[in-house]
């Protein structure tokens, strides 16, 4: 499968971000309802908070929650460069660019992750 390329470079896409997150990998995408396309997925590996076009900090422990239609109806930019992707989480090979989207809901789990005392 092929996703059409855009005309942006990576730096240009970064500069476009006011308050956002860079995601480099994810897993465990599951649907609440196939009929609505509502899903959540868990970012893993390189994940960074961006403010005013600047990478501020590496981030852990988040989840993306959205619907496919809303998310891909909010594309702001697509990159010129594309890469082939096929791995554990992508069974159908896709030639794909970087994609910048607006307005995605990000959540985190209740609790700090530390084992309880005692």
């Amino acid at each position, binding site marked *: 499968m092929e996703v059409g390329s855009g005309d942006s470079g990576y730096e240009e896409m970064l500069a476009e971000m006011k308050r956002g997150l860079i995601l*480099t990998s994810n897993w465990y995408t599951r649907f609440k309802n*196939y009929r609505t396309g509502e899903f959540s997925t868990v970012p893993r590996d390189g994940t960074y908070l961006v403010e005013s076009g600047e990478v501020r900090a*590496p981030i852990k422990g988040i989840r993306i929650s959205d619907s496919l239609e809303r998310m891909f109806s909010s594309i702001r930019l697509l990159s010129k460069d594309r890469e082939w*992707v096929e791995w*554990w989480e992508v069974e159908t090979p*896709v030639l794909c660019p*970087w994609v910048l989207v607006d307005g*995605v809901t990000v959540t985190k789990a209740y609790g700090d992750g530390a084992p309880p005392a005692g």
Partner: protein
Amino acid sequence: MLLEEYKDLADYCVREARRLGAEYAEARIHGGTGTGFLLKNGEPQPPVIDDSFGIAARVIVGGAMGFSATNLLSKERVKDLTARTLKLAKSSSLLVKERIGMDDSKTVKRKVRVAEKEPVEGADPNWLKSVLLEIDSRVVKLESRADGVKIPNRIMVASAGAEEKYIVTSDGAKLESRVPRFHYFGILTALKGGDTAQRMIQQGESGGLEIVKRIDLVDLVETEARSLIRVLREAEKTPTGIMDVVLGPELSGIAAHESVGHPQEADRILGREGAQAGESYLSKDSLGTKVGSEEANVSDDPTIPHSNGYSLVDDEGVASKKRRLIVDGKISEFLQNRSTASILGVRNNGSSRSSGFDREPIIRMSNTFVEPGDYATTEELLKEVKEGVYLKSFTEWNIDDKRLNQRYTGLEAYRIKDGETTGLVKAPVLEITTPVLWGSVRGRSKRLEFEAASCGKGTRCRASPSGLGGQTPCWEPSGSWAVARRLAKLMAPDESNKFGVGVAKRLGADETILITVIANERMARFANSSITVTKNVNESGQVVFLAKGGRRIIGSSSNPQRASLERFIELLYKSMMSLPKDAGYVALPPRGRTYKPSGTHDRKLDRAEGLLSGYVKEAIDSAEAAGARRTAGSLEARVTSHHIVSSTGTLGSDTSSKVLLNIRAFTDKDASGHGLSCSATTRGFRPGPAGTTAGSHSKRMRNARQLPEEGTFQILMSPTVAANLLSLVGEFCSAFAVEAGTSYLLGKMGKKVASEGLDLTDHGKKEGCLQARTFDDEGQPTRSTKLIEGGVLRSFLHNLSTAKRSKTNTTGNAGLIEPGLGTWRSEAGIPVTKRCSLR
């Protein structure tokens, strides 16, 4: 005994491996046959009969492990396979930094045969169909009293079969087992006005066809449908905040599987699954650590009679036993195999299983559950809650790869006030860390129930009976095929296909398609920057399509031999003729096509063994140079050829190749980076840059912190992330998914479904594509299909049947039941299920 004819091959394999110098050798004959039936919105689809059998060899030589598998069962092939397995292991020895060994577990000699009152052997497709039709009619009848709620979309699959194994090891194990299973999977989609709710149901046990009555399957699905209607009619806004929750068995089971079973798998803890299923928030020193309240008690038990994850001896020939994972809030034991027990110096508890002959055994759960407690009923538990939510069933769920951050979205869920349920609430989300969840357990009821599930793990993720029970396609061989397989000569693909078409013609079939798929896969897996196993899997499978008088049937077989194929087609034909006419049948075009052999594949990948270690070293060295302290991953080289012959004169073949690197780099537990290189040829393959990407992210992720607050964000997705989500958009373009009501794109043809900049195209055979086919499974030419153009939905993916129903042309994307992306879904699999397996 059905395995009798194969035993000597496995015994020979182990003797030969030892003669050639293996320190440890293990051979496994594994497979079965079975029958599956699918009902879509009340319409029967063609039944599918599967037959898959093969041999796997695993050896350790010089502290390095080799694994090979093939379905070509002859002494000469097994001799070659054994020698190659040792060669593979030796070839990786320079990159083995952590020597692999087996512990001194007592191996067993045993026969395990699960009893069946009504044998699954030769399960009549008509009987499977009648079970599904009864369930379907009960569900439809509910609509008349449902106050406007409709359940127009109903997918149901019933399958019955048996899994058979013969395992022998060089240190004395001999296991012969036969586990029959029945499994049901369904998706119900209910609608009311613009609202929708969806329920996935999985049920299954080990045993015979009596399971259907034993679990009251028909009543059970009807009850679920009734609940779904109530959810859509009555559920109100869910309360939010920090409050008490009561988890029903379905929820406590999934939580036990995801956040106790998985993080306590010793191979994850030791980093061996680092680049795939992930690692663990626990370390090897966590035994005895408190991770929950006194009431947190969780176990995994493969010995429960009738359970779907039933196993008395594991696939390393060690007796399975119940494992107490958490006892009174403390980690009691991990799930172990012989290798991890050897490294950790603890007692092995027999948790090693494989999901098929072509997969190595790895640590798997069986039946994982919260131990029963003191409360007699759920109602008694509810009385303890002043204000909260009772989650009885769930839809969406997931968890991070260290098993700390999990989410379960409720479907049937009730508000609790002053100890009683007061009404249904809509889609409450429980999003919580593992220690807080298990640290908050206050009580457990005595009621213990099991659900079936499938769990994916390993490279080229494969589901295994596990978790809350589980299922795999599990098939039973006929004795006569077994005999024939060894005695007959192998045939070349075109010869085999033509022979099969001839057999079907002699029997009287109107239409026949034979497709032979030959796959040669080489793989090196690594963890902690050390190769853990080198593999070679050589498979030859056939897909058979028969039609007669408007009836259809599909078969999938791993028997490339003449007599076996003849038997298989005779069985298919007989089964087909017992069926009524199929309303969805569409005749093949009268004149077939000829496809010239096309080969864009890289011939270097035909013999990739010598390349693997070099590529792995380049990737690991690059990651470490960029800052990684350790790495994990897999390198795969695959060459696949398809050969087709049809009764209408279609003839063709094509071959494609690919080489894939998946590398994950770590600097500490929370600091990791990911890199991929995927190419159709060695020319475009870049293991070094992929390693550098992984290594540099692992360095930058040091001291990662929690997000200050939740909310809406701009998201910049790498190609890896965007490809995950957009490949799912592609799957939703399948006409089958649209007809089944399991696609959000239903009713949106010609409408805007994405931003103007988005173009999405499915390619059958574009130059450089990682999955190139010139023809689909109906012998129709593949092509490029614009699915979304400028954000507007332009096409769905069709085969001949869906195209006729939609009054359009096929897009050359058959799968014989379901059109699929890139035409790869040739096994007539049930696509919806792969979006919902546990991990």
